[in-house]
């Protein structure tokens, strides 16, 4: 990281992009930090969603590592203004050497700066522990009282077939079997596909967005200088009452 952070083309190149602010929050920070907590045995909540893990030693260690990139000067001073989009642009402009991103971002960066020589690597994980990544995206929802429920379900079943899921995406199909299609054999996207087996969904909780907001505000406090343990203890005290509500 030290080697990657250097003067470059009359400006400064930073080693790593930390998502610490911007418009698209708290999602962008969550997507980049929750896998780090998971692969270290932590998380925001336990697997059964019954207890808070955000201030556990495992989670705190993961966040300390991530925020450390900023505190040690390997991430840009504008980190608290940078969401995923800002990081992608800074990467495409060659101001940041490494960012965490999705397959969609990879293709957008190639479009923004076709001359940029970039590669994809899977997220490293602590020795002896499992890798982790996070699932994102949108869901199809049919209201129980929908007037044309049967027809809608039939249409969604048609759209969800591996052939159609594979056909109607520009980047990455949401069904594993659709990867067999010829158009999804791009070797540059192999790393993203490899990580899918370790992907976990976010908890399906009604208060999840409030919990992530509490986490994000404490995360920003840590970037502003508060000790990570102290910041995550504050997050835990705000998240705890939301469990089971």
């Amino acid at each position, binding site marked *: 990281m030290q080697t990657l952070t250097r003067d470059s083309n009359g400006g400064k190149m930073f080693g790593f992009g930390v998502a610490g602010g911007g418009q698209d929050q708290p999602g962008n920070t969550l997507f980049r930090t929750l896998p780090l907590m998971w692969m270290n045995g932590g998380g925001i909540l336990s697997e059964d969603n019954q207890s808070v893990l955000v201030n556990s030693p495992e989670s705190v260690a993961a966040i300390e590592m991530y925020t450390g990139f900023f505190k040690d000067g390997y991430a840009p001073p504008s980190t608290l*203004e940078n969401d995923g989009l800002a990081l992608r642009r800074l990467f495409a402009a060659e101001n940041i050497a490494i960012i965490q991103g999705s397959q969609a971002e990879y293709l957008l960066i190639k479009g923004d700066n076709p001359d940029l020589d970039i590669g994809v690597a899977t997220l490293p994980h602590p020795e002896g522990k499992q890798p982790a990544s996070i699932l994102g995206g949108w869901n199809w929802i049919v209201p129980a009282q929908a007037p044309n429920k049967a027809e809608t379900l039939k249409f969604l079943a048609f759209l969800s077939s591996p052939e159609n899921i594979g056909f109607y995406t520009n980047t990455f199909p949401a069904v594993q079997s659709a990867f067999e299609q010829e158009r999804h054999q791009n070797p540059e996207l192999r790393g993203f596909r490899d990580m899918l087996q370790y992907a976990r969904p976010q908890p399906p909780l009604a*208060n999840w*967005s409030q919990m992530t907001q509490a986490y994000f505000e404490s995360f920003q406090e840590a970037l502003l200088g508060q000790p990570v343990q102290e910041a995550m203890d504050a997050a835990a005290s705000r998240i705890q009452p939301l469990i089971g509500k």
Partner: protein
Amino acid sequence: MRAWKFGPGHWFILPTMVLLCMLVLYPVASTIFLSFTDASGKWVGGQNYTETLSEPSTKRVILNTLYYVGGSVVLQLGIGVLAGILMNQKFRGRSVVRSLMLIPWIIPGIVAAMTWAWMFHTDYGIINYALTSAGIIPGPIGWLTNPNTVMPALIAVNAWKMFPFVALMVLAGLQSVPDELYEAARIDGANFLHEVWHIMLPQLRPVLVAVTLLLVIWGLDGITIIYSMTGGGPAGRSMIFPIQIYAEAFEFFQFNRAAALSVVYFLMIVLLIAVYIRVFAKAEVE
């Protein structure tokens, strides 16, 4: 005792009153009802109020709101009065300067906010570039990310946006001041500063009372600048009441809690404006 009679005047205002009831009274009543129920419509008493008001962030949100509105109004009035007085003087190119001065007010709020956000950007903003190039600051300042600078920066943008309105009102007020007052003062040896202090400002008092009230109301319900520049961050340091209500309702889908916060905010505004009118507008009448 006079019997109440439904006359032609009442018929004339009836459509307006019906419209007002639909657009104001019904939403207010509905919000109050929502604040005492849960998501399933069950009556929960004051639970939404105790929950939202006991949040540790609520105190900070109230203080931030007062700081933002107070700071903005003081700065808007200060710059606006100065600009209005200057625009009232005779100088070459006065019409052009008067027109140019209106630009910040005319620009749509979201455009102004995004432009300022880029100008304040830590790494690529022109403000840091100019200040570091001139050697005024040793390195970039996180104007919108440093807890000490974020609110002053947002207040400065809000003041920049609205000072032309104040200047315009002051200019209009000054044009109605009779020249005889200035002439009499000059005969007594008054200089320009004496004229400002003893003639212009006292004569402007009714205008300033009304303008201040408008600025306070616009400050209290304005979210565009903060929402688009910082979203209330970093870590809630610039979170104000209207954005908190919006987040509760449309980000967390806690409509009942949002309704409780709205009622509290509404009462705060009513109280503030009632006190203001009682103190200043009453003094004006006297």
